[in-house]
């Protein structure tokens, strides 16, 4: 963004929005929106408190667990169905169904199957993240240049070597795109899991603050969450740009 010929750093427009928020907050229009300065003061107040640390670790644990499972299972499955017609025809319909399904409705079933604890939350997170990773990896593998695969074979690559040295790297731009969207969905999954399955982590904090009308606390936690999700997504977008130079030239 440039103002009066001055180049401003990215997202400077957020300052304007923050000002607007402050004005609305100070005008006392609604208790629902406290001034943003107050929200930030609360934020610095609650960061470091045991309740916050506990929420952060619980959420982080479920989130990392779910994302790791999605990546570790999703990428190989995506590569396999991208390479194998039969597997593709068997698995792809399910991937598409789950990708568009309202997964929140499945959470009660998970509670019955896996109990009211961490396992269910991790599985919910995985269910939110994994399908797009599979689908994107598959798309990445399917556009691999045939001659690249033949090249590897002609030089005697064993299947596992081809998997790691050709398929993974050739599909990496799409894989990273899938992981980025998957991670954003995982944030949704972990919070929904925490709210519906057992009231723990940030889910518990939301519940606590909103039922007690602690609006600045509520917004503070929300900002932390939005900020974290956004940073992770930006980091992955940065990795994506790092491999973009070859995405167009495969």
């Amino acid at each position, binding site marked *: 963004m440039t103002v009066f010929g001055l180049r401003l750093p990215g997202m400077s427009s957020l300052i304007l929005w923050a000002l607007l928020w402050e004005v609305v907050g100070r005008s006392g229009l609604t208790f629902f929106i406290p001034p943003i300065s107050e929200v930030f003061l609360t934020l610095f107040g609650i960061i470091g408190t045991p309740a916050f640390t506990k929420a952060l670790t619980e959420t982080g644990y479920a989130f990392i667990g779910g994302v790791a499972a999605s990546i570790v299972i999703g990428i190989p499955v995506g590569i396999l169905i991208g390479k194998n017609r039969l597997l593709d025809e068997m698995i792809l319909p399910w991937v598409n169904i789950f990708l568009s399904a309202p997964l929140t409705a499945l959470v009660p079933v998970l509670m019955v199957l896996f109990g009211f604890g961490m396992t269910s939350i991790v599985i919910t997170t995985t269910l939110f993240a994994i399908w797009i990773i599979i689908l994107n990896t598959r798309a990445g593998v399917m556009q691999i240049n045939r001659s690249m695969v033949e090249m590897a074979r002609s*030089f005697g690559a064993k299947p596992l070597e081809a998997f790691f040295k050709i398929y993974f790297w050739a599909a990496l731009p799409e894989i990273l795109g899938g992981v980025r969207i998957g991670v954003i969905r995982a944030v949704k999954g972990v919070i929904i899991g925490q709210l519906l399955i057992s009231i723990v982590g940030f889910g518990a904090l939301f519940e606590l603050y909103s039922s007690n009308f602690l609006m600045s606390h509520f917004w503070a936690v929300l900002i932390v969450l939005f900020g974290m999700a956004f940073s992770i997504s930006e980091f992955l977008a940065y990795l994506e740009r790092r491999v973009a130079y070859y995405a167009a030239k495969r």
Partner: protein
Amino acid sequence: MHQTNRSFDHLQEIVPPSAVSVRNVSKRYNDVEALRDLSLEFPRGQLTSLLGPSGCGKTTLLKIIAGLIKANSGDVEVNGVKVEGPGPDRAFVFQDFALLPWANVLRNVAFGLELRGVAKSEREAIAEKYIRNVGLTGFERSYPHELSGGMRQRVGLARALAVDAQVLLLDEPFSAVDEQNRRKFQEDMLALVQNEKKTFIFVTHSIEEAVYVSDQIAVLLPRPSRVSEVIRPTSFRNKDAVNIRRDPEYLDIIDRIWASLRNYVE
């Protein structure tokens, strides 16, 4: 069948033993019959061109020799051993280069050796040598997208040379290269055949190119493909680059091949 050139029949030519023998190979893709009962010998240490109308099965034949696809019947022998799949005795140069876009020139050239389990320092030393041979010194750390088409094909060539296979299979290696580079490449090819003592099997669309670089030219018929004639130029092979293109036999052979292929060009 003209096994030798008509005007030089009196010369008793010594044809080296075959490095690659293709015997009665047939290949069909579903309802397309690409090759029918094709037999051809590839003399050791020489360059044989496969020339024929588009879609006649040249790439198919090359990939069968490479072991990348299986023939429906017939067999291929390399140095007397039946081909069952890809092997270290053959290396392929791809029409579209097939370089790894995420790896630099050095790793690309060394990639064949990497897949064969050669240690990093050793394979990089070998790769350096072939990078020098194809004239890419100074570009070791460049990535394929930073190179021109001609340079990329040199990388593909260096990669195939680096594994030191006895048989090099080249599928229209110069078709994505501009005319000036192409001429330079053709001259380099001649030098390469002289120096490397390898058997080259070379697919091209260009009659001039085939006659210019080949010890033996196999003209293929349209699908289902068989060999229509094998021509072995005799008089100009040892001349230098400039004189080949003026040699009467060179011009003669070009006319003759064109005469037999023109029927198949719409």
